[in-house]
């Protein structure tokens, strides 16, 4: 079953959002900027040993397994990840940059 560490999933989410904001250029006629994203993902979550890591604080990894769409998971077997992502404070949006210039 395909799985992904939590850190990698967060990185993928954020990189997708950054791509969207970078494409919202000042020249665009219509500017839609994502200000906050809330994701609720059903998944299986497992704590696994990262045998490759020597540092004690990172000796375990959180591995997320997304359910197969062809399967019907048993009731209450699925967990859920809810994550809210926001732009980092202190950086201008493309709209603000244009106003400043």
């Amino acid at each position, binding site marked *: *079953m*395909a*799985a*992904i*560490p*939590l*850190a*990698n999933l*967060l*990185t*993928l989410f*954020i*990189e997708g*959002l*950054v791509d969207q*904001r*970078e494409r919202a250029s000042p020249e665009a006629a219509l500017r839609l900027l994502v200000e*906050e*994203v809330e994701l609720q993902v059903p998944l*299986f*979550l*497992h*704590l*696994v*040993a*990262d*045998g*490759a*890591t*020597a*540092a004690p*604080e*990172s000796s*375990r*990894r*959180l*591995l997320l*397994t997304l*359910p197969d769409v062809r*399967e019907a*998971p*048993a*009731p*209450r*077997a*699925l*967990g*859920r*990840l*809810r*994550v*809210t*992502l*926001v*732009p*980092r*404070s*202190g*950086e201008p*949006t493309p709209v603000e940059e244009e106003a400043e210039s």
Partner: protein
Amino acid sequence: MKVPTISQSLEAPTGDGGTWRMVAEDNQEWQLAEMIDAIAAEVDRAEDTLALKSYARRVSFAVKALKLDLSVTVRRSGDGGVWFRTMMPGESGGTLLNLDFSQILESQLSELRAPLESSTAQPLHTLPGIREREIQALAAVSIFSLGDLERYTRAAPLMAEVGRKTGIPEHKLRRWRKLPALLSISPPGGASGDTVVVRGTHLGRQPPPGATVLFQERPAEILDWGETHMTVRIPPDVSGPGTLYAVLEGEPTNLLSWEAHTQARRGTAHEGSAREHVPHGRKSPRSGRRPLRSPRKPRHR
């Protein structure tokens, strides 16, 4: 298609479309504190990965809230500890455990890195001994000024990451930042109980309180200390090749490769310099495993 093992898959580059595999035997039991630490470490990893990119890309996002609803089994051990294990696909009847990390993450947000606008404009060529190709390598990762360099190398993992991406030895980055750096060991190997001299820079005239020098993660006795050197005794029970580093004022230094000889080889070590341990990217060795990187400073929340 070849399916990687867990350890391989954990080190696969993010976003490469690689496949990870989870098997039931890997699903470990955990106590609540372990789970919280693991989640905090995952968020740290994501932030570390995104840190350099955020400077190069002008915009970034942060994790404002993270909530987990886990289906778990609960067990009480003989010593009174409570152990959890998340449910595997196909299992049923679990207990629901809700974890909300909003407060922890808010505190992370409050310690965000300085905004781009505050970058000091002092150019890189003012650094002592810097070469043109090193300036170009730093520019390739969006480091254009001393202020950029300071922000990019604020934490030990970031320092190692910049070293890997630019090919500039970490000890050189540390010297430019006026941070303690280890340069060499004489001799580059020895047996337990032997005395070795570690050369470095910005070590301080006296060892700072709590200073430790670690051979293969074992503390060595400090015999002498100076601004550019420290003399230590190799601790017992070390063997084979490994790494050496120091922890000064809570911050780890760069790593040096070093080898412990058996007693039979004592005296055969030649005078010379141990080479700096240069990890080859996060996704490689230690970590045939992930590559050995600068020791991570524990974060307490």
